């Protein structure tokens, strides 16, 4: 082997280094593709959503604060009746309530599965949870309609349709998501934390409460966000039980509506490019922005609460 060859072999990249480079590029491309897709969708929704306010008499403030929603008609001063407040209230209502209801259950079940009885959890709870994710929302909605709504009607009065019914259905729907993400978060807590805590004489509950849950907080919060995101974006099932009336909810059992339910039920009936259609895209944009806000908020909490 002459000098040049040795030099070349030394200065050129090894097979491994090339592979490494290629691997990094491939995985980077994947992530780039996802980000591009997100941007494409965002831009797509934003362009249509903003069109509602361009060249019309609709203002953002009216859109957010008025309570009458009848896109085809105009009020006395000729401004289209586009007030999305009832839907915004409805969406926030069902999302927050169902997350509030689901979180203790999800954390409880996840702690039970990972810390107390892993065998039982692995064998029974996990498969059931995975299975529930696969039930189509239509089926949840149907069960909500034939079981939950009559139950509420008979217990609390009214028609049974409303935020409460939506909350119950969403609670069951987001439970698997939140639970399985909480489980991953708890499993990711290194064993040595638990061992250290137990070695200090802490009971199991003290270990769980003071060490495991604390260090898993960011992961659990992410699970809750994913759950809320699912609740926020869920359309078909909620639509079947919430009553879908663009009215300000008077209480938890009066018919209400969510952004998605109005969006889904209206989109096929409107003509692309018309004001009615654009108004629906504005709702979609609102949905995106609100989930962005949720996200940032929870990330902030997560960073604060994380064990450094």
């Amino acid at each position: 082997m002459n000098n040049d060859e040795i030099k070349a072999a030394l200065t050129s990249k090894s097979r491994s280094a090339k592979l490494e480079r290629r691997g990094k590029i491939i995985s980077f491309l994947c992530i780039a593709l996802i980000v591009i897709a997100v941007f494409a969708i965002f831009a797509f929704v934003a362009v249509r959503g903003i069109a509602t306010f361009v060249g019309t008499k609709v203002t953002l403030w009216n859109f957010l604060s008025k309570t009458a929603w009848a896109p085809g008609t105009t009020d006395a001063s000729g401004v289209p009746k586009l007030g999305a407040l009832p839907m915004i209230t409805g969406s926030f209502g069902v999302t927050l309530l169902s997350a509030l209801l689901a979180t203790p259950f999800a954390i409880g079940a996840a702690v039970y599965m990972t810390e107390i009885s892993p065998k039982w959890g692995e064998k029974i709870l996990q498969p059931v949870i995975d299975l529930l994710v696969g039930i189509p929302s239509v089926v949840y909605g149907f069960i909500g309609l034939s079981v939950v709504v009559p139950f509420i009607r008979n217990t609390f009065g009214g028609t049974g349709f409303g935020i409460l019914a939506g909350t119950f259905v969403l609670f069951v729907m987001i439970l698997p998501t939140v639970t399985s993400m909480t489980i991953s978060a708890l499993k990711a807590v290194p064993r040595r934390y638990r061992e250290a805590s137990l070695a200090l004489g802490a009971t199991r509950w003290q270990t769980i409460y003071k060490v495991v849950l604390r260090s898993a907080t960011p992961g659990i919060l992410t699970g809750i966000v994913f759950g809320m995101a699912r609740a926020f974006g869920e359309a078909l099932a909620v639509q079947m039980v919430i009553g879908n009336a663009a009215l300000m909810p008077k209480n938890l059992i009066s018919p209400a509506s969510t952004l998605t339910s109005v969006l889904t039920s209206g989109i096929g009936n409107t003509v692309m490019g018309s004001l009615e259609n654009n108004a629906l895209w504005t709702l979609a944009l609102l949905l995106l922005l609100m989930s962005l806000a949720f996200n940032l908020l929870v990330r902030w909490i997560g960073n604060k609460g994380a064990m450094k």
Partner: protein
Amino acid sequence: MNAKTADKIATGTLRAIAGIIVLILASLLGYILLRGVPQISWHFLTSPSKAFAAGGGIGIQLFNSLYLLLLAMIISVPLAMGAGIYLAEYAKPSWQTDFVRTAIEILSSLPSVVVGLFGFLIFVLQFKMGFSILSGALALTLFNLPLLTRNIEDALRQVSFAQREAGLALGLSRWETVLRIVIPEALPGIISGLVLGAGRVFGEAAALIYTAGQSAPALDFTNWNPASISSPISPFRPAETLAVHIWKINSEGIQPDAAAVSAGASAVLIIVVLLFNFLARYLGQRLHKKITAS
């Protein structure tokens, strides 16, 4: 109250919570299966659906669902894998990484009808794919990617750092360490993530109504030319899936036995997800044993 009693009370509460969840879930499943299973017969599973007469089956829809799932997974799994590897192994904590994560989480909170309409305008019309399995698979990919990526990343992160150090110490590059050591170790976690994703895809309707379409043309199971529209493996034919069929029957069905078909189809859907679940779990364990020689 001393620490020991607190421990007992807490354990009891947790046990009760787990019990309640299982109870809720079990009664849900029981309800669906009890209503649906009596409708299932060989005829129901294999014959095509009927538009307005009684006695229709779900054969084509079932096949479409499986095929669409397969295609969607073929597209989304490598992407999610790459993205998950990048986030777990290469990305450094920085605002860019945070930004990417936020983007992914936002994608996951999109209502599926928006994904469906985006797919309709972009894939169906812009790319001229028409109402087809391919459009549907791409829309489902968008819908499925965030959760899948998230799951894979989590699974990779759970592999202890010592494993990576061992790989690097052996002179493997980081990429090789990931492929040969981290992924095999994380495989059960990844597989359960895939199953979760597959379940979601299987039950999704809103994203498919505008992309894969709501009609199920008759299939000719002797025709294996992927370019022909009646061939079962053609990715360019419109394909109503099981979940879309359930939605359609519930919303505009005029068959006299619509309720029965819907109940039966729901039960079939759940049974398939169940089978799929067990199969994936079993394969995951087998694969894990084989690769890690443990």
